[in-house]
């Protein structure tokens, strides 16, 4: 069913501590889960919820983003009407780059005003989840909220950076703080905001006119008293993937079959760019257990507790343990990896042994030969 809502994936000033993983790409296109990029989860959720118009506000290092998204066909967003819109930064000179997301929303306001869709969902790319936004919209309308924030109960201290949210008994958000704040709450914001398009444009214009340019901090957090801002609690899986420890931890959580079934199938499939890789070949000596393995791999060695992306080769006698090997990685004969993250196209020479710790995995930079 088509929703009366358009999507915005906001990549402006993404807050992240991903080190070398974002050296050549934006956070949205960090590879995740064996065959996906982070942005696939929120984008697939939008499409699966019945949203057919999605804008991606690109900001920096977006070559890999354009390459990945293309015309949107893989997400069924290559449409005659609506579809995918990648909106590069609309700046006049370089100083505009530092301006907040409200400025970019303002410069792209035609995207909103041209559409008859009444609601907007604004999301970030690093919240790994699979969610029916139709239900969020239903609750938003049903409760008469001005803004609905998708949140998650997050009892333990976690490794990702997420805003904390204080929710009263009626579900209204009374306080919200940036990740480093001391707010005592076990609820975090998933950085998905649903509101009427008209309200968004009003917030954009008023805040900017007051010299403020940050959507969440200025337009929403400071208006919690005046506006009816409510929390929608997401029940499904959530990974907040914006630090390296969080990346490693949430990747490893996918090795739980319940998480795998929940995140990748419920309520709908996660789409990504199709690569036409053949099925994975396991050779005579392969020993594989408790792992997630994408297509196009060739495995002669041992793989345990690991995630292999598409086209990875594990040669004879090699051992890959508790590691993440991104696309086209090669582990040479009798090589050994433990607690490692290899970015794309890293080659591990024969007999080489690399070991990180589970708190601080060893991270190999894209195309390194080690």
């Amino acid at each position, binding site marked *: 069913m088509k929703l009366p809502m358009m999507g915005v994936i906001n990549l402006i000033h993404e807050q992240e501590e991903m080190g070398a993983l974002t050296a050549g790409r934006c956070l949205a296109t960090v590879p995740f*889960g*064996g*065959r996906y990029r982070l942005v696939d989860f929120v984008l697939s959720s939008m499409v699966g919820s019945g949203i057919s118009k999605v804008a991606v506000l690109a900001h920096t290092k977006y070559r890999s983003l354009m390459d990945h998204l293309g015309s949107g*066909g893989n997400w069924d967003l290559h449409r005659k009407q609506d579809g995918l819109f990648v909106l590069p930064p609309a700046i006049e000179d370089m100083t505009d780059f530092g301006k907040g997301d409200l400025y970019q929303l303002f410069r792209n306001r035609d995207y909103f005003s041209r559409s008859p869709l009444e609601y907007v969902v604004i999301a970030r790319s690093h919240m790994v989840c699979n969610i029916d936004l139709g239900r969020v919209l239903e609750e938003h309308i049903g409760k008469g909220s001005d803004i609905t924030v998708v949140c998650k109960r997050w009892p333990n201290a976690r490794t990702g950076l997420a805003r904390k949210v204080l929710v009263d008994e009626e579900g209204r958000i009374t306080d919200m703080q940036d990740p480093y704040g001391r707010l005592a709450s076990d609820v975090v914001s998933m950085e998905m905001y649903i509101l009427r398009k008209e309200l968004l444009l009003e917030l954009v214009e008023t805040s900017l006119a007051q010299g403020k340019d940050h959507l969440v901090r200025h337009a929403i957090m400071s208006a919690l008293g005046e506006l009816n801002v409510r929390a929608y609690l997401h029940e499904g899986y959530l990974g907040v993937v914006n630090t390296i420890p969080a990346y490693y931890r949430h990747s490893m959580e996918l090795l739980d*079959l319940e998480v*795998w079934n929940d995140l*990748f*199938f419920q309520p709908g*499939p*996660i*789409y*990504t760019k*199709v690569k*036409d*890789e*053949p*099925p*994975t*070949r*396991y*050779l*005579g*000596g*392969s*020993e*594989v*257990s*408790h*792992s*997630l*393995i*994408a*297509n*196009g791999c*060739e495995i002669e060695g041992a*793989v345990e507790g690991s*995630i*292999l*992306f598409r086209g990875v080769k594990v040669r004879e006698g090699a051992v890959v343990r508790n590691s993440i090997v991104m696309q086209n990685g090669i582990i040479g004969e009798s090589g050994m990896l433990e607690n490692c993250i290899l970015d794309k196209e890293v080659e591990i020479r024969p007999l080489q042994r690399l070991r990180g710790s589970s708190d601080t995995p060893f991270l190999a930079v894209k195309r390194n030969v080690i």
Partner: protein
Amino acid sequence: MRRNECIAMLLAGGEGRRLGVLTKDVAKPAVHFGGKYRIIDFTLSNCANSGIETVGVLTQYQPLELNQYLGIGSPWGLDRREGGMHVLPPYVRQRGGDWYKGTANAICQNIGFIERYSPDYVLIISGDHIYKMDYGLMLQSHKRNRADATLAVIPVPWADASRFGILSVDEEGRVTEFAEKPKRPESNLASMGVYMFTWQALRQALIEDEADPQSEGDFGKNVIPKLLREQARLFAYRFEGYWKDVGTIESLWEANMDLLAAEPALNLNDRKWRIFSVNPNRPAQFMAPGASVRSSLINEGCVIEGAVNRSVLFHGVKAEAGSLIEDSVIMPGAVIGRGAAVIRAIVGEGAVVGEGCVVGSADSKQIDVVGSGDVVRTRPSLPDAAMLEVEPL
């Protein structure tokens, strides 16, 4: 290749009767192969990789699933503004219509389609074979020989030669004799069912064949022998490489097993010659703790908790704890229950082998088959497929 210099006509209407339950609801070209593909993906990918941008796909038998699979040809890059892929079912004209009666008759009924593109050459292929071939090289050879028709041939073992259409050629590669399934073959060059025609010569031949009431409207039986009798310029084009007709359960199983060799004759992982297919959008395969996988080909979305050995598993197959899959082909979405065993068998799409049940056996001569969507509830151990207690879902 210049645009529309050459277009392809792909015969995809075959029933594939010898594939039994596997073609109960689908045409042979739509049968699954190689862990991810359907048979027709190979010829469509060959076209795409050879630079042929206009492909007519002739369908007839059980076309629903095949049509849905083909769509508008996007997975093969054949959704083009000019040309592209077109599905061509038999249709009705003012003076009535007819089913496709034979391979040549099917093309003849689509002369109108071909003429819309006014090609110089027409490639006739079928969606029944597994091979990777650059049709561009064949066209070059066809042009060099100024041929009316070029037939792709492959040397087969002499013992098998009587199962094929066999060609004899002179030292220049010109065809001197063509015998359909000869008892005493004079050559071991088998026709692959891949024909490159100069369009004007083909058009003429099709019209003459149509006018002949004795003809069955078949390329191998009628059109090629007649051209040969009339001393048309027929040449053979030798193909070196893997080619397999997967027309029977045994050959389908064998061709799947061929992929498991350490150096398979058919390399599916060739970045310069990708085999394209419709993507099922499944996550990376899940290998549970305690899984064991060796010498196998496994596709996305599988959940493996048991042991898999020398087998091909399509997307979304579940092999539950304690199960054993050996020397088998498991088609999409099939479930092999807890403690069940599948040995030397083909399990159809969405079929279920119940907990503790056994299909096939290591010393069985034949390949056992569980049809699509069937549920096997027979406990051990019945060696004969015919005795399997199968109930439809």
